[in-house]
């Protein structure tokens, strides 16, 4: 049977790239932030993680900021504030 050539429907990835900064070797004395994605229980989870990190890893301060709701990105002012105040930030994702 003969052959047919058909075009791919899959689009190309956009270009660009981001290198993530080196993470610290210790959290002692640092400020850790959480972006609360507003999914159920994330607030409790972040608070518990923060408490353990303070007790066991010497974290100085824990900051948790909540998005307006789960389905929209964090507001720029939340991101800017965390970037300014924190050494390490955990962003909550999914359910």
């Amino acid at each position: 049977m003969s052959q047919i050539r058909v075009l791919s429907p899959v689009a190309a990835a956009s270009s660009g790239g981001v290198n993530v900064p080196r993470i610290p070797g210790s959290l002692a004395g640092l400020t850790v932030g959480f972006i609360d994605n507003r999914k159920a229980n994330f607030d409790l989870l972040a608070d518990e993680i923060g408490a353990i990190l303070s007790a066991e890893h010497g974290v100085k301060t824990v900051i948790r900021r909540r998005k307006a709701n789960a389905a929209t990105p964090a507001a720029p002012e939340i991101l800017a504030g965390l970037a300014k105040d924190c050494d390490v930030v955990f962003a909550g994702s999914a359910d």
Partner: protein
Amino acid sequence: MFQGLAQSELRALGVSGLPMVTIEHPLGGERSEGVTRRARQAVDQIARLLSQETGAAEVSRATIPTTTTPDFITVTDSPEALLAAFCERQWCDGLPIVPPTEDRVRAMLGGADRDRPLGVMPPLWRVATLEKLAVNAVMAGCEPAAFPLIVAAVEAMLDPSFNLYGVQATTHSVAPLLIVHGPIAAELGVHSGSGCFGPGFRANATIGRAIRLILMNVGGAWPGRHDMSTQGSPAKFSYCIAERADSPWGPLHEDNVVTVYGGEPPHNVNDHVSTTAAGILATVADTAVSLGSNVGWYFSQSQLLVVLGPEHARTIADDGLSRADIQRFVFEHARLPLRILKLGGMWGIHDWPRWMHAVTDDEALLPQVPSPEDVMVIVAGGPGKHSSVVPNCTFSRAVSRPIRPL
């Protein structure tokens, strides 16, 4: 289960070496001991990341391999072989396709610049060129005359207020509903009469299908991997109608326009007995509210689409109500008391304005949408005593775009 989406998106964006901490799914619905267990899981991983910092830093500067797809493939010239080849590559929705040959794609483009980009489409942030839209439109079985409509719909979906990332990646069942307005609907054969949400009409079926194929192949929203909808929806195959131009209130748009609306499948409004606008609209309003709907929880972006059947529309119009009156009636009556809202749904993680949070009276009836203007009203369908309500997903706003020659 969401790890794949995160990893694919990082790869697509070229983000190299971002450490991830994962916990058991689900977190929602867990009691305190389950949350505590997951917190410990997270901290243990964080501790490992810190201790491996040197190695992690090396990884973070390594180049992430990118996946590439060929510009074309060569397959045996038979419908069965073509379908098998596309299904195997996860390039189609599972239904037979028209072969996207160079000649057909060129005809679909109609002379438009094939390399013209409309933007990048989430969740994998791939470039939506006219050529890729045309390939998918050919596969769906579209006629070239429909291509400007498809392009306008994609432009509308890429408007930030539509929040296509949320629409594509959510666990909700949302699909973009295309509503075609203006004379072009009849010219293209987009059906607005009996059974308009269903099968039998090539333009509705293929234009809606083209949009879905574009969302899958250009955006990369594959079910269970990057489209995280828990159950999906039949509306994700194809979701395209026209509004009736003979609506008692006139169409929503006189000109050639397409509206994209991030909606659930239609919810039936059955009212065989009401002889007044109040009766029919009370049934509409009751259908529009339920504890399980997304609408009302993320308040600022909640919208309702009311699609009146022509018989219901005539009864309402004969009572002298305008479109604005209908919007006001539904806004005022599509409400639930606070005591019901406290029972489940998204209580506790809802996003309400301050005044609604301040309400303490359990019998207070709270609105589902911010204003009457957030109730859209169109007429579609044929004879019969049915209408429908299409709740939106509440993290996306309807967007309209003019349909113009390319």
